[in-house]
């Protein structure tokens, strides 16, 4: 595809005459060499897929849990919506909650899409619009499954991605507009739009990641992507340390390139927090991943970084203030996150370096990634020997002294999102024991709210870091560098066993680190399901947590399990934007394995995935609007998402009602009959309280109507086994999942048959399931 062609001819003589001042402008030239016919819904608008959304939303009805009883969005307000009352504009509580859900999804999708736009523009400037997209060589023919599905475009070059982003940005803009006062007013329509924006979010993520994979030398669908260093202890703090925080790797690339060009690779450490860290290691496997988003205060206050580079997304907004306290020069490198710093983009590097080293300016904004690279490296080299003098954390005796001043007012505990008994830990500290503070090190999400709440200004989070310092320094693990997409070959290998149910499920462990009890839950869940021969896919901060706990042999999960997209694999796809490859894998199963047409054919593919692909997302520590948008993209594809307990603050769940039999009838595409398929999957979006509940729920939500008897038998085996082990009893809903006696695992037959008898179970058929009447091959007579 060629975009924005301009031809200008001042004067031309031809046989037919003289032409002067001819100007020709063509918005877009479509090179439609893609043989696949266009499907019914290329570039869907806000309402194109509304009917599909409503099919899902009528089955998985929203349960709203208002986080705030008021609406404060216009000057009529504040309006009290308690009890589903209507506000001055006429909106009721249900619509308001769904409106906030949509707003969150718009913020998330705009963030990913904005990231992608910046990435594509930057890479086009560097590599040209015609630079080919290549995310897996010959192993990947379907290089952009989400984009193909949604937009009906087969992008081949970086330039082609601009058109895709034009579409995504337009849709986000329209959806955001619908949240204005006096526009949309129905909660289900808001929900449908949230699904739409979620779908668009996956397009934006896909564009961002395939652009960087194609140009920056990232692993290309590589199951054996290198194992890279993870954890605070892996950073050699004797070297100058540059710490990059955020999600956009472009400034980090500038840093690494400068180091390479100047033969400084051995002389500095480049490490990252949050998704930038993943992408640093995808670019340069000597980069270090410090840890997830919640490690920001921890790492800064440790005093280890000599220069802090901030790009975009999930950066603590007080990162500059925190760094300044420890005399760490800060470079903000994104237009989206200027931190109030002076824009020095156009100043000579020498001057900026001098100002940062001398402390004349504590931080700068530099919007040229190459200049960021030069300045960061030169400043780190000069500042490191000086900064080593700065004390970063209080000494133990100082903590004990300060803890004695604690008033035991409980304000820190009440501010703690985990309700940790901080006053008790401070009381123990006052008695000379830091052990209770050290216990919190592992569990703390690092928000720092305890300090903000303390009326006498105790640096409680620093106390916790100091108490856990020994553990922090010992954190040396391995993470598999983000591999990017799943190859077509892998999809061909696993497509059949997934769809038939013989691989019991695909579990995507994604999202942030707002965990209820530290990151170990994530690692435990990954191992549990990999051992059960599910395919476990990880990304983002969750992928880091998955690698931070060793087995009895001292191996981390990525050393213990294959990185192949296969039964028993733990597969790190990469950063946030790499989540699109998880959706992409599900889409490719429908396309490559089942040969369903992909191009602009969203509804049919989603219907296929919903009924056949036993995939579940788990965002154990989801906190962000981006996570909301990512989840929404999965919902529209019919993939259920589970969130940890803090995920309830997304204020709306999408819950099926297994007890309402009438809700669970799908068409049998072979006959046109409506047949009971059971609650499979039972929920589309669900919060769970504990790791144990998460595991049982994952196993249950992997069931799909299309499972063969053998597949259902395997899935039921895992569900029952986990339920018995973790809940201490048999599940009581097996009558809803057993279709024929062949589904019943032999080893559990007596127990299950007993339940079936008690529940008056009746045999049902295993259909060729669909929610779409148009997919019925034989019309009902």
């Amino acid at each position, binding site marked *: 595809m060629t975009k924005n062609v301009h031809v200008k001819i001042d004067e031309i003589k031809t046989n037919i005459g003289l032409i002067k001042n001819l100007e020709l402008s063509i918005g877009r030239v479509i090179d439609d060499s893609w043989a696949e016919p266009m499907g019914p819904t290329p570039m869907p608008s806000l309402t194109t897929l509304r009917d599909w959304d409503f099919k899902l939303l009528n089955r998985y009805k929203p349960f709203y*849990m208002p986080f705030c009883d008021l609406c404060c969005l216009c000057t009529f307000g504040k309006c009290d919506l308690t009890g589903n009352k209507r506000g001055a504009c006429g909106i009721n509580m249900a619509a308001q909650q769904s409106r906030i859900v949509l707003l969150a999804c718009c913020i998330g999708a705009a963030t990913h899409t904005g990231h992608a736009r910046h990435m594509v523009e930057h890479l086009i400037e560097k590599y040209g619009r015609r630079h080919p997209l290549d995310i897996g060589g010959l192993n990947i023919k379907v290089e952009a499954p989400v984009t193909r599905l949604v937009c009906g475009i087969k992008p081949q070059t970086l330039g082609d991605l601009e058109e895709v982003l034009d579409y995504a940005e337009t849709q986000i803009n329209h959806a955001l507009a619908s949240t204005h006062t006096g526009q949309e007013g129905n909660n289900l329509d808001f929900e449908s739009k949230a699904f739409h924006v979620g779908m668009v979010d996956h397009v934006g993520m896909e564009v961002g990641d395939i652009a960087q994979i194609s140009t920056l030398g990232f692993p290309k669908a590589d199951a054996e992507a290198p194992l890279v260093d993870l954890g605070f202890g892996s950073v050699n703090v004797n070297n100058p340390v540059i710490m990059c925080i955020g999600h956009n790797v472009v400034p980090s690339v500038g840093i690494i390139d400068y180091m390479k060009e100047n033969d400084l690779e051995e002389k500095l450490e480049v490490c990252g927090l949050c998704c930038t860290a993943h992408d640093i290691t995808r670019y340069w496997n000597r980069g270090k991943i410090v840890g997830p988003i919640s490690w920001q205060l921890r790492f800064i206050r440790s005093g280890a970084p000599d220069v802090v580079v901030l790009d975009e997304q999930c950066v603590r907004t007080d990162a500059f203030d925190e760094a300044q306290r420890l005399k760490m020069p800060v470079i903000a490198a994104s237009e989206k996150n200027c931190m109030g710093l002076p824009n020095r983009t156009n100043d000579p590097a020498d001057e900026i370096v001098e100002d940062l080293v001398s402390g004349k300016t504590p931080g700068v904004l530099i919007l040229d990634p190459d200049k960021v690279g030069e300045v960061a490296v030169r400043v780190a080299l000069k500042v490191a020997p000086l900064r080593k003098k700065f004390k970063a954390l209080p000494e133990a005796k100082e903590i004990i002294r300060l803890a004695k001043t604690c008033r035991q007012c409980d304000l820190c505990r009440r501010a703690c999102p985990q*309700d940790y008994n901080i006053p008790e830990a401070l009381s123990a500290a006052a008695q000379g024991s830091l052990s209770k503070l050290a216990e919190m090190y592992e569990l703390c999400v690092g928000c720092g709210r305890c300090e903000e*709440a303390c009326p006498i200004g105790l640096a409680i989070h620093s106390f916790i870091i100091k108490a856990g310092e020994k553990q922090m320094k010992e954190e040396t693990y391995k993470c598999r560098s983000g591999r990017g997409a799943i190859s077509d070959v892998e999809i061909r290998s696993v497509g059949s066993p997934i769809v038939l149910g013989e691989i019991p499920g695909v579990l995507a462990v994604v999202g942030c680190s707002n965990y209820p009890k530290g990151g170990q839950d994530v690692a435990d869940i990954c191992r549990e399901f990999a051992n059960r021969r599910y395919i476990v896919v990880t990304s983002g901060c969750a992928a880091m947590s998955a690698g931070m706990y060793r087995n009895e042999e001292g191996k981390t999960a990525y050393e213990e399990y294959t990185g192949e997209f296969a039964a028993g694999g733990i597969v790190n796809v990469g950063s946030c934007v790499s989540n699109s490859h998880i959706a992409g894998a599900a889409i490719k199963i429908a396309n490559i394995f089942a040969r369903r047409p992909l191009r602009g054919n969203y509804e049919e593919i989603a219907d296929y995935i919903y009924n056949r692909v036993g995939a579940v997302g788990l965002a154990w520590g989801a906190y962000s609007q981006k996570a909301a948008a990512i989840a929404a993209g999965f919902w529209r594809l019919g993939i259920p998402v589970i969130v940890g307990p803090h995920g309830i603050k997304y204020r709306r769940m999408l819950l099926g009602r297994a007890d309402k039999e009438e809700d669970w009838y799908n068409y049998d595409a072979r006959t046109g009959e409506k047949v009971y398929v059971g609650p499979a999957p039972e929920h589309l979006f669900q*919060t769970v309280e*504990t790791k144990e509940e998460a595991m049982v729920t994952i196993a249950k939500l992997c069931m799909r109507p299309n499972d063969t008897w053998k597949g259902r038998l395997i899935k039921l085996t895992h569900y029952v086994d986990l339920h018995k082990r973790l809940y*201490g009893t048999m599940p009581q809903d097996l009558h809803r999942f057993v279709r024929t006696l062949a589904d019943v695992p032999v080893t559990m037959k007596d127990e299950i048959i007993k339940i079936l008898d008690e*529940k008056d179970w009746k045999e049902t058929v295993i259909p060729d399931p669909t929610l779409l009447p148009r997919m019925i091959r034989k019309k009902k007579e």
Partner: protein
Amino acid sequence: MSATEPWQTAEFSGTKKAMVIAKPEVAVAMIKKANHPILVIGHLAAEIELEGKMLIDYLIDFARKSKIPVIATAHIVGEFLKRGFEPAGWMSATEIGSKLADPEWHGIDCDGPHDVALFVGLPYYMESLILSGLKSFAPKLKTITLDNKYHPHASWSFPNASVKDWAENLKIMISKFEERGRKQRNVNV
């Protein structure tokens, strides 16, 4: 800190706050008036110790004496069974929340909609949001919390109180219900 501020800071912004249960006898009186109560118990019941006894053990005593059917959330059904107590059902906390908000739900024992739901032992923020959902979308349901933390989204809540007072309140409530020995029914949920 006031006893009637939400336990977690900034948890509440609205106009309708829970009435404070000043004495456990008041809670008992309200529960006795209920036609069809239900008790929802979260996983913390199996983690919190009150004066040398686990919260779950107090709550089993409470359920036995009050004959209120119990829903165990998360994974703790096994903790009840280990103690020889069979809850009426188990499901996720938001599932029971959404069912309680459904006026057509036949109730955990198929005896019709519940008119009073008691909550205890969930993480504060989870319980708070579920109560918020019920406040807005279950107009006929009254909610009561048995925790020692003030829950403004409930209809009735105990104030913020010490663990010692919490244990004492539970003991008093248990003593006020007469033992009737009706077995918990495990029915279609």
